[in-house]
């Protein structure tokens, strides 16, 4: 089993509901966020394209943060999710420097924190908070190893991209374009 998130950039309106839902669900400290929305503008008038993306930790298959962690606090959990064990983390910052997506931060309590794909909700059979609140339903979550899952169907039928594939991290958050 391998969890993946598929986000339809053509349906996203950039409302930032996913960001607020995550901050509420995971009690993220004020001034920090585990997910964020970007708007990229391509081209020049009158041929301008805008792309909206809800970004977060990509739960990479080849995760540099897990590789460089000196204590093993950053580790791969069930379903390929990258988690941080707070009481094994020394707060050295190596994983933060190693992440090409800048998806990690130092929690005010000292340890490193990041998106967990809402692992606590997955255990109860629920979707991550960001996916469940999206008003345009542009986010999909599921098992990419299961060919009958919605995420597998979407990736088989639509054009998609991942962020910074040249970094070699093999990310598991896909963007439909």
């Amino acid at each position: 089993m391998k969890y993946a998130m598929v986000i339809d950039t053509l349906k996203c309106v950039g409302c930032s509901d996913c960001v607020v839902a995550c901050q509420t669900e995971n009690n993220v400290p004020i001034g920090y966020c585990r997910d964020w929305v970007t708007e990229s503008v391509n081209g020049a008038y009158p041929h301008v394209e805008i792309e909206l993306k809800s970004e977060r930790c990509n739960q990479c298959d080849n995760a540099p943060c897990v590789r460089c962690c000196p204590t093993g606090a950053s580790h791969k959990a069930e379903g390929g999710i990258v988690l941080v064990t707070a009481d094994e983390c020394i707060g050295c910052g190596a994983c933060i420097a190693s992440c090409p997506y800048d998806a990690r931060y130092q929690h005010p309590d000292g340890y490193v924190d990041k998106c967990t794909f809402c692992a606590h909700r997955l255990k109860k059979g629920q979707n991550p908070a960001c996916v469940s609140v999206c008003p345009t339903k542009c986010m999909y979550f599921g098992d990419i190893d299961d060919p009958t899952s919605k995420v597998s169907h979407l990736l088989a039928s639509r054009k998609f991209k991942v962020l910074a594939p040249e970094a070699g991290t093999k990310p598991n958050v896909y963007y439909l374009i």
Partner: protein
Amino acid sequence: MQEEIFISGRNIPKIDPNLEVWHFPISLYLFLGGMAAGIIFFAALFTILKREKQVQTAIKPAMIIVLFALSIGLLALFYDLTHKLYVWRLYTTIRIESPMSWGAWVLLFVTIGSFLWVFSYFSEIFPKWEIKVKALKNLERFLIKNRRNLAIILLPLSLILGIYTGILLSAFNARPLWNNAILGPLFLISGLSTGAACIILFSKDHYERKLFSQIDLALIFIELALIVHMIMGMYAGSAVQLEALDILIGGDYTVMFFVFVIILGLIFPAILEGIELLGYKVPVIIPAVLILIGGLVFRMVMVEAGQLTRYLY
């Protein structure tokens, strides 16, 4: 034209707008670790070659400097941790793929080895102080007898420590300026050069100063060649590496890099050491101090400029 902005608002401390997770303490630690590795390498090498008598500064006073350098370096490293109470977790595991993990272990062994080394010379350094505890006296006798074995252990460990200070940075492929394989050997050579400069600074013996001036001169040429190699390699690299190189050449850190590292830290002291070797009198303190400052600035530039570089997507 391509432009990307955060529209959900994001201003995470130490991450936005530019990564600033590692600061001066890390640069200081990399500098002191490299310099200590250099001094230990020379002390161990000349002991193995049975030429201790010719390099009295390297094996005694400079090794005391090593103890201070390693202690201050470790304190700087500890100061930079944000979850300090869990620091012991470093020593409950060894993770070969994490340079910081095996580096922490090597640092521990090198620190212990250096303390034992200095202790083996305790009676020579402090002839008036007598060790009264019998166990310590026995330990000193044992260490004096096994000094050469200690040198054989410390020699490879010092090389690993020196190269580790570079690999620590080059292992991060997310930061294109750091992510080049030459950084390990470059930091090692720079560490050996600053180690030699430190020995020159404290040596009063003419032969020893001349010997280390010659060694240092050779190391500076190798270091300059490696820097050229690094720049050439990045020029032949991908878009992210070209962008990263812009910071060093024609960007925010150009003056720091070329004036303080290349000219004042390497070329100028090399000229002064060359003039001295030709027989002219040059106050030895000038090239030695310039090399040490250049070494520290080099780490500061690499640590800070590297964090400005990233993948573009």
